[in-house]
């Protein structure tokens, strides 16, 4: 599994409790080996997933975000994934204008019984993110050496924010 040969990348998963989280559990119970990069956040329903969570993760430097819910029509709350599908599709289509590679975000449907499918999804998505490599940071590296300033501050040399004034 190539994903494990190199440094882990930061992949965040948002999974609905009833289907996909269960599917990931089923994959675990079946010992379906997967790359380890993914970290899963459990939410009650894909309808709870605000696309802005995904944006937040990407802005924070996540290299990939994977969302999974119940298959359409199978939502535990009847309609949650129908709303989710619209919201997530809009986000995915919107990302290109921001210059964020839309392949870094994917959404799909996995039921609680689809352990193998979950393994496939995770493996493929992780492979894709590794192909894309680490995401560029939205914030350019600051010229300010925060560490040095922090040291200065701890030595009682005034507030770092106003260092320039002092100088």
């Amino acid at each position: 599994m190539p994903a494990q040969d190199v440094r882990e990348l930061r992949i965040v998963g948002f999974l609905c409790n009833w289907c996909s989280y269960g599917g990931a559990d089923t994959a675990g119970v079946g010992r379906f080996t997967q790359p380890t990069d993914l970290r899963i956040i459990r939410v009650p329903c894909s309808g709870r997933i605000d696309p802005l969570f995904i944006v937040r993760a990407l802005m924070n430097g996540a290299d990939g975000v994977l969302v999974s819910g119940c298959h359409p029509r199978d939502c535990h709350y009847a309609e949650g994934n129908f709303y989710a599908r619209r919201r997530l599709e809009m986000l995915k289509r919107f990302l290109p204008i921001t210059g964020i590679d839309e392949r870094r975000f994917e959404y799909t449907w996995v039921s609680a019984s689809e352990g193998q499918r979950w393994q496939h999804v995770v493996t493929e998505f992780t492979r894709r993110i590794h192909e894309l490599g680490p995401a560029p940071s939205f914030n350019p590296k600051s010229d300010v050496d925060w560490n040095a300033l922090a040291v200065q501050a701890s030595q009682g040399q005034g507030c770092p924010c106003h260092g320039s004034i002092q100088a």
Partner: protein
Amino acid sequence: MRIGVFICHCGSNIAGTVDCPSVAATALTYPDVVFSTDTMYACSEPGQDAIIQAVKDKNLDGVVVASCTPRMHEQTFRRAVERAGLNRYMFEMANIREHVSWIGKTKDLNTGKAAELVRMAVEKLRRNRPLMAKRFETTKRVLVIGGGVAGIQAALDCADGGQEVVLVEREQSIGGKMAKLDKTFPTVDCSSCVLGPKMVDIAQHPNITLYTCAEVESVGGYVGNFQVTVRRKATHVDWTKCTGCGLCVEKCPSRKHPDPFNENLCNAPSINIPFPQAIPKKAAINASSCLMLTKGKCGLCAKVCPVKCIDFEQKDELVNVDVGAIVVATGYDLFDWHKYPQYGEGRYKDVITSLQYERLLSASGPTGGHIKRPSDGKEPKNVVFIQCVGSRDKSVNRPYCSGFCCMYTAKQAILTKDHIPDSQSYVFYMDIRSPGKLYDEFVRRAMEEYGAQYVRGRVAMIYPKGDKLVVRGADTLAGTQVEVPADLVVLAVGAESAKGAVQLGEKLRVAPDQYGFFVESHPKLKPVETNTAGVFLAGACQGPKDIPASVGQGSAAASKVLGLLSKAMLESDPAVSRVNPARCVGCGKCIQTCPFGAIKEIQDRFGNPKAEVIDTVCQGCGICTVTCPQGAIQLEHFTDNQILAEVNALCPPKMFANFE
């Protein structure tokens, strides 16, 4: 906050590929974590005791357990922290077994991942708050919608269990489809002999109020406290006086409208009692054909009625009923076989449905139990049965198996031979579906003892030749095309959802599937529950079912109702949405998207509109939270800040990158 972290080894299940002590050590560096340890089996009794002890010794106000999936043991540990004196929601779980140790091979990667999942749980827990369930009283009364055999069973069981029952039936009499059947498989006992006594019990049970010719108009409220309005349609007969003597039926001169009870095989008088065993045994007027109501002259029934109960002025009546639980038992309808043009679309009178055939077989039917074909009244010799008409057929959007057609067709083939000994039955089938006690034996008997000719193949067309109908089909086992000159063709029409089911589902907030059958909570483990608390399903409204399965579900639904209403008070799940009225601008978007009608508009004391969540109705999906642009409505236990804390724990904002 003082948080304790427990890293479970789960024997070697986790410890095999995760360095649990190292995870525990890392956890101690996380904010607010004051205690961290690894433990062999956190869920075991000693494991739970250790958690409780630690809460007390270390004065903890939150607990994180990293072990298996929360779907397995979240409840276990919640109860444990509760025993330790904490609120059950001051607990978080990190899944380091199914999501880590069982799927990753490399120990150091697994260990790192486990530590991060614990970090995520800690960050979430830091934003948790104690949540309290609400307790509320329930109305000790049950509404059963639908008076077929499933609804009858549910109503009787609930009534026998001591609950008041209101049974609402759309038709004039209860009994449903079963009342129309002649005999039942696989015992070939008389349908009305079996059902009749149960129908009488309904009429006589002191706990049951029966409304027939009635439909549910609206449903409000929630589990434990539903407010239902029932529309009782005008029958133009005062049923408090009507004795069911039948004199009016006898004298009615208008007999031009088809008789629905007899599946339109014959006509019925405009004032009628549908069948001798009808419950309630009361007459009702068909307003669309009654001469008095359509033309203003006749009134013969009113003249002959000995108790003067005819009331041409009668109007629909709305009745309000408060109930604590609802059983939906609205049954099914027959597939409209006219969608198959190759069967003649009704041009050939001797192509009939299986239920029409039941009426021909029935002694109380239009032919007095003699099989006479509709076109010329002759006794048929060659009878062809075609199965899967509207079942297992994608082209008519009915890909599912209706389940009972194979069995009733075998029964009808047997009865045909009983009625007409020199007859020959041909059954075109695709597969025989007969799993059930004595079912397959029964089908074999139709073939072996009664000589029904089973032909494996569909029928492509029916066309008339002389006074016969030529049925052209395939015998796929022989690989040939076959033709049968038939005297009568009986279509084993499949089941589809009852007319109006989708609309009723909307009132009840019970989702229908794509075919209009109601969706149960869980296909295996919650077959009679729905995703709307307090609403239960019985019988074929959930999917095609035969009589024993429907009766079984009627009883099952009743036991769920009795269990629910046996509690003095109900508790609601506190992980529901909550509105911050200060942030709410009253735009109503959350109300629009809530699938459960759990949000209502209220006015604050300045008269501004605000949203308010009905705790006991909210199911906790969180659609509203995403819908609200102000973040004014937050799903407790999954608030924006809680989930954002998890995101930030996993992806620390990049501004910290410089500190690496």
